């Protein structure tokens, strides 16, 4: 399936040239076309492009909620460099991203291998593996809150019955433990998405691709490495980008499970910006950080496209 060529921004004329050689089409007049797309374009302009432009302005001021706005030049940007708390949240977010990306890809791939063929139960399995993603991280996090409680939570009950811990672990008030727990939750919760994307890609590979290697007597493992993975490269790139960008923008599961604590030990970038803007009300500074985030996410996306497509 050519899934990801569809996902790329395509700037070529999207309308089918009809009535070639004529100025306007009788059946599809230009004005009607413009009228049809205007509402959607307006939404995007008002709620994405205007805020983005507005952000550039705000980031150059102190922008208090009450009082006069003062122009502050690039002060908000230079302050970022010496903002140790921001640096900490960046490092933490990167650490989290590094931890979860690999397992999500590997687990997603393994699940895709399980369900890609039409075998008995494959549809049921696929449905089940994807269900946590559909339920969403907010709901999964709320459920995890009570299962992470000392003594009474299921995680502790299981660990105690296996004799691994005494079951009194307070998972959510310890930085490393909470991080580990959130990573496991996320890997479990979102690898279904990677599975779906890879499965669609695998099913689109023609049988003939495997025929000659079958004649060579290549085993499953070799076929996977020599045919499936290389052919699937663009789809893999796509799913990795989706998961990395999602991790860089992580907020919900951290907010619900730890509020970024203890202290600021599990504060992600988005939560840090959220705190600066809506708790400390430093909107100018927060917006400058937002701009940095937009640029970084854009660069990561571009870099990964480039890295993972080079060998095509």
């Amino acid at each position, binding site marked *: 399936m050519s899934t990801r060529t569809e996902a790329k921004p395509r700037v070529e004329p999207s*309308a089918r040239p009809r009535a070639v050689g004529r100025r306007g089409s009788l059946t599809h007049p230009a004005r009607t076309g413009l009228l049809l797309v205007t509402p959607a374009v307006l939404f995007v302009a*008002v709620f*994405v492009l205007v805020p983005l432009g507005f952000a550039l302005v705000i980031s150059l001021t102190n*922008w208090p909620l009450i009082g006069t706005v003062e122009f502050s030049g690039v002060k908000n940007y230079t302050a970022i460099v010496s903002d140790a708390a921001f640096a900490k949240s960046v490092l933490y977010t990167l650490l989290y991203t590094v931890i979860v990306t690999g397992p999500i890809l590997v687990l997603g791939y393994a699940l895709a291998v399980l369900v890609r063929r039409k075998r008995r139960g494959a549809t049921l399995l696929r449905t089940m593996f994807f269900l946590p993603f559909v*339920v969403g991280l907010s709901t999964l996090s709320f459920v995890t809150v009570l299962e992470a409680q000392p003594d009474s939570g299921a995680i502790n009950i299981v660990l105690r019955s296996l004799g691994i811990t005494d079951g009194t672990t307070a998972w959510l008030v310890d930085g490393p433990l909470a991080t580990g727990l959130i990573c496991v939750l996320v890997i479990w919760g979102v690898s279904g998405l990677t599975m779906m994307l890879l499965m669609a890609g695998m099913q689109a590979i023609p049988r003939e691709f495997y025929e000659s290697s079958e004649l060579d007597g290549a085993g499953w493992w070799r076929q996977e490495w020599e045919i499936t993975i290389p052919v699937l490269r663009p789809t893999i790139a796509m799913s990795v980008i989706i998961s990395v960008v999602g991790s860089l923008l992580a907020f*919900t599961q951290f907010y619900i499970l730890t509020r970024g604590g203890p202290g600021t030990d599990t504060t992600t970038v988005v939560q840090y910006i959220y705190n600066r*803007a809506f708790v400390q009300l430093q909107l100018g500074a927060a917006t400058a950080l937002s701009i940095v985030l937009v640029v970084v996410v854009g660069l990561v996306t571009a870099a990964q496209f480039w890295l993972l497509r080079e060998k095509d």
Partner: protein
Amino acid sequence: MKLKNILYVVGGGGAFLVFAIPLLWALFRSIQPNDVIVAAPDRSTFFQLTWDNFRTLIEGPGNLMRAVGNSLVVAVSTAVLTAVLATFAGYGFARFRFRSGPLLFALVVVSMMIPFQAILTPLYLEMNVLRLTDSLLGLVLFYTTVNLPFGVFVMRNSFSSVPVELEDSAHVDGCGTLRMIGSVLRPLVTPGAATVALYAFLAAWTEFLGALTFLTKDELYTLPVALVNVQAGAYGEVNFGSLVAGSVIAMIPCIVLYVGLQRFYVTGLATGAVKG
């Protein structure tokens, strides 16, 4: 061959349990009374099940049913509005040639790459000026925007795959643009529109950060934000029974819609424009 089948059964079965048990466990927890949930498991009380948590949700001070209502209103409105706007725009981009077309389409696609999490602060300030904060309408407009680029994409593809000849003959019969979409093309693009609506509904139903930021009034909270209040003990003591029961209520529409409309969901993923 035999070994492969054994691996499939063992691996598939094992993985199935890993994915199913936590969700089933949450279901089980929701019918345990709160004092059992917060205590170390005791054989004598662990299986005394009750609907009390759900009763508390409906009658209790947290008024979670109002939050469920808000979530439903927001999610349904978002789904309908997104599907309608995406259908119009998809038709416009797929079939009509106008000078600004390519530019406007590029604009929509580029907006897909600007994560709303990153422009939350200016967006909040703008919505404040437009009086769209603390407003369910504001939230609907915001969610619609977040889902539109993907929707426009899907609908453009849907319309592109309909043979042009079909429209030509309808035009000869004097069919206008709206009737063209509404009757001639509708059966052919309904799967696409259903996909868009389904995604928009689920995204709006589970969205957290935007709702947390744009809503500050209790009576407007959507379910995920209301559950934060339950978790924080805003309605007296922390009630884990209410929390897990509320979570189960949050899961139900997702599971029902996904399992029922899976066909559309998978098509949508295949379009490949899912945001992370």
